[in-house]
């Protein structure tokens, strides 16, 4: 009964490759998010989507392209991976984008070699 799920759990890849992380929520929420957590545990929002529409883009490099095929899915595609992209990426969802609890997925640990 996973509420917010992400695949894969771990992703190890070489610099310059392109990779995708998938996220799905079965909570019926309208808003989904991507966060990045660095090695010091600092957690920062990257994007938010409301009902498939991009609402927040926190000056993330355009190598990162989120895609929302429907409101239950928000995938993250990363082109030309760099060493500094190594982090844990969390997907989250909330009922709406206004003061509602955000529920996080289990995270995807991306390691770029």
């Amino acid at each position, binding site marked *: 009964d996973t509420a*917010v799920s992400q695949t894969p759990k771990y992703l190890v890849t070489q610099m310059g490759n392109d990779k995708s992380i998938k996220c799905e929520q079965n909570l019926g929420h309208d*808003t989904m*998010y991507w966060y990045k957590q*660095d090695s*010091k*545990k*600092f*957690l*920062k*929002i990257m994007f*938010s989507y*409301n009902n498939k529409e991009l*609402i*927040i883009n*926190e000056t993330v490099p355009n190598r990162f392209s989120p895609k929302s095929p429907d409101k239950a899915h928000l995938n993250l595609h990363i082109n030309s991976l760099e060493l500094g992209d190594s982090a844990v990426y*969390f997907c*989250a969802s*909330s009922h*709406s*984008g*206004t*003061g*509602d*609890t*955000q*529920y*996080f*997925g*289990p*995270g995807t640990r991306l390691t770029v070699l």
Partner: protein
Amino acid sequence: GESVGLHLPTLSVQEGDNSIINCAYSNSASDYFIWYKQESGKGPQFIIDIRSNMDKRQGQRVTVLLNKTVKHLSLQIAATQPGDSAVYFCAEGLIYNQGGKLIFGQGTELSVKP
């Protein structure tokens, strides 16, 4: 951007004691505050939230206190248990900010000794 500075702040308590985790938030306009718990290898898990029209809110074994004058938030955990060991994050936001942007604090690692 990335966080800077030293290691994650750590709080070590004895099982059964009360824990207090503090957080300074940055935006005086923020009106929504949340505490999350993150266990090793897992995603952040919601604990409790509070809106700016309140200064105290209680849950099961947890209490959040908000002091808007000094932009300070605290999380009190009563009778701390080994299962409470985790990293705790405060987050701030604006209720009616479309998009639901939350700004997370640095995090505090709570270690409970049996």
